[in-house]
């Protein structure tokens, strides 16, 4: 299965991945409306690593685990694994009880600003290919097979 991997030596911490993630998961799919009117939570988020010489960053999103704790913890069956093994959230069934947030070891699930459901990375399965990877100015995140050479 292909997942998105971040490379700390390349990430600029610019935040473009978050911008494009919000846009791709907005209703309007319009970058300006998505940010000015819809207030979407991005499925990917930048973390800063303090190191003496210079700040390093990396972008993190759902790892689509083989044995996902969030699916186990979900009381409504909203969090499920689809046929391509992508962990997805069904907005209609989710009541934002945040049991998934309680158990996700990566902290990759966030409550929506409207508090009605949660947001997480779905590998842009509907868009076609992950917009964060496509729009990273420095190829700091890549969509790779889990046993690809680069990860060794």
């Amino acid at each position, binding site marked *: 299965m292909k997942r998105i991997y971040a490379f700390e030596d390349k*990430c*600029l911490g*610019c935040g473009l991945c978050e*911008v494009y993630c919000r846009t791709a998961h907005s209703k309007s799919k319009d970058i*300006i409306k998505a*940010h000015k009117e819809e207030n979407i939570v991005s499925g990917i988020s930048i973390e800063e690593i303090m190191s003496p010489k*210079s700040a390093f960053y990396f972008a993190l999103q759902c790892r689509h685990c083989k044995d996902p704790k969030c699916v186990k913890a979900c009381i409504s069956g909203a969090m499920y694994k689809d046929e391509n093994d992508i962990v997805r959230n069904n907005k209609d069934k989710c009541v934002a009880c945040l049991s998934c947030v309680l158990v996700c070891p990566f902290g990759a699930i966030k409550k929506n600003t409207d508090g009605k459901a949660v947001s997480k990375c779905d590998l842009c399965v509907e868009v076609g290919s992950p917009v964060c990877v496509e729009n990273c*100015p*420095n190829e*700091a995140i890549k969509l790779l097979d889990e046993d690809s050479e680069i990860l060794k």
Partner: protein
Amino acid sequence: MLNMVPSAFKIIRDENKCIQCKVCVKQCANLVHYYDEEKDIVRADDTKCVCCHRCVVLCPTKALTIINYPLDYRQNANWTKNYMDDIYRQAQSGGVLLASMGNPKPFPVYWDKMLLNASQVTNPSIDPLREPMETKVLIGRKPEKLEYDKKGKLATKMPPQVELKIPIMFSAMSYGSISRNAHESLARAAEELGICYNTGEGGLNKDFYKYGKNTIVQVASGRFGVYKDYLNAGAAVEIKIGQGAKPGIGGHLPGEKVDEDVSGTRMIPLGSDAISPAPHHDIYSIEDLRQLIFSLKEATAYKKPIFVKIAAVHNSAAIASGIARAGADAIVIDGFRGGTGAAPARIRDNVGIPIELALASIDQRLREEGIRNEVSLIAAGSIRNSADVIKAVALGADAVYIASAALIAMGCHMCHSCSVGKCNWGIATQVPELVRRLNPDIMYKRLVNLVSAWNHEIQEILGGMGINAIDSLRGNKLMLRGIDLNEKELEVLGIKHAGE
């Protein structure tokens, strides 16, 4: 002290496009953009902007434009805005005005005043889609003639040649004035393209020895990083006598850029200013140059061609002829528009001559001396596109060096502030967060794309001229015609006027 120098640029932010994503704030190393927490809007400080376009390019909603700061000075053809601002700066700093890149003054660009020939009927084009188009060149010294022994076997021993698949090389940019990632990109691009990149006067980093066969190691007056393995690491050695942007003077890399990586490569103490003296202190005449050339040949067991790079100055023709007679394998001529990381603005703007004129006169002089065929000529400063390459070869160059074009391919936006060392594109800087912005995996591909595209265009143009090998274009001045040039310029260039 009051700063009388006005802002150079003005940032225009389209409020209904800006989504306060703060990408520009995080990406501007000059701290132009800042986030106003209280009003939740992003604002800009015009005074710090150098118009490097980092924010414009990365802004996801294209909400930013930058314009020249709209401030009119009283009309005065003599005291122009630039000259007044220079005085404000020097009255405040009391120092030499530093500038970067090549001569920006509106002197005529002769490339744009020469037109190329094409075949019609009598001399048919050659179809680049069907016939091989050869752009390979061999740079190095050639014997006067080849001799065969009785049994018909070649008796003459050929001096070493550098084989270039494309007559374009990446010119000298020292390790330290540009970042490690920039060097890696140039090296990997050179390797994939089958051409060479020049280390510049900052030595060669240990990790890049593996790109040796696509490297030209430079020996400049500072002798930074020069030792036996360094000389033998590359495909050729280039003695840097001069540089187009700053003929006659040396170079200065400020100490703060000399971190442990740069100091290790240059073999100078950490944090010390790296100063290349104006002359080589062991070359005060042409015969001293010959001694340096042959000591380098000895050090490399005569297995590496030795280039000599000079700035295009008034008597370049005589100098070049002298260099050829001093045993150089190739002569590099750097025009006054060649780029630099840092040089006094006055020198950059007033010293040196255009490469086109220098190249034409040098090629003609060497032919009159009958020695043109024995050395290679490489033109530099500044080649901006493949047509410039064709015209340089037609004027007599074997190959060209490009540097500014390569920087632009890697993201440079010619903001002319490399000397500040905070290049937002990760090129002319040693700041880790900025260097990281130049990802060699991406940038080397952009360089490969650029040069491959130019090579494809060169092949198309050659085909149009009915030529299927770049060898037949070198010095082929009938392929050029001048336009908007006076008699003397045509004469120096050695070309007819369009319509003749």
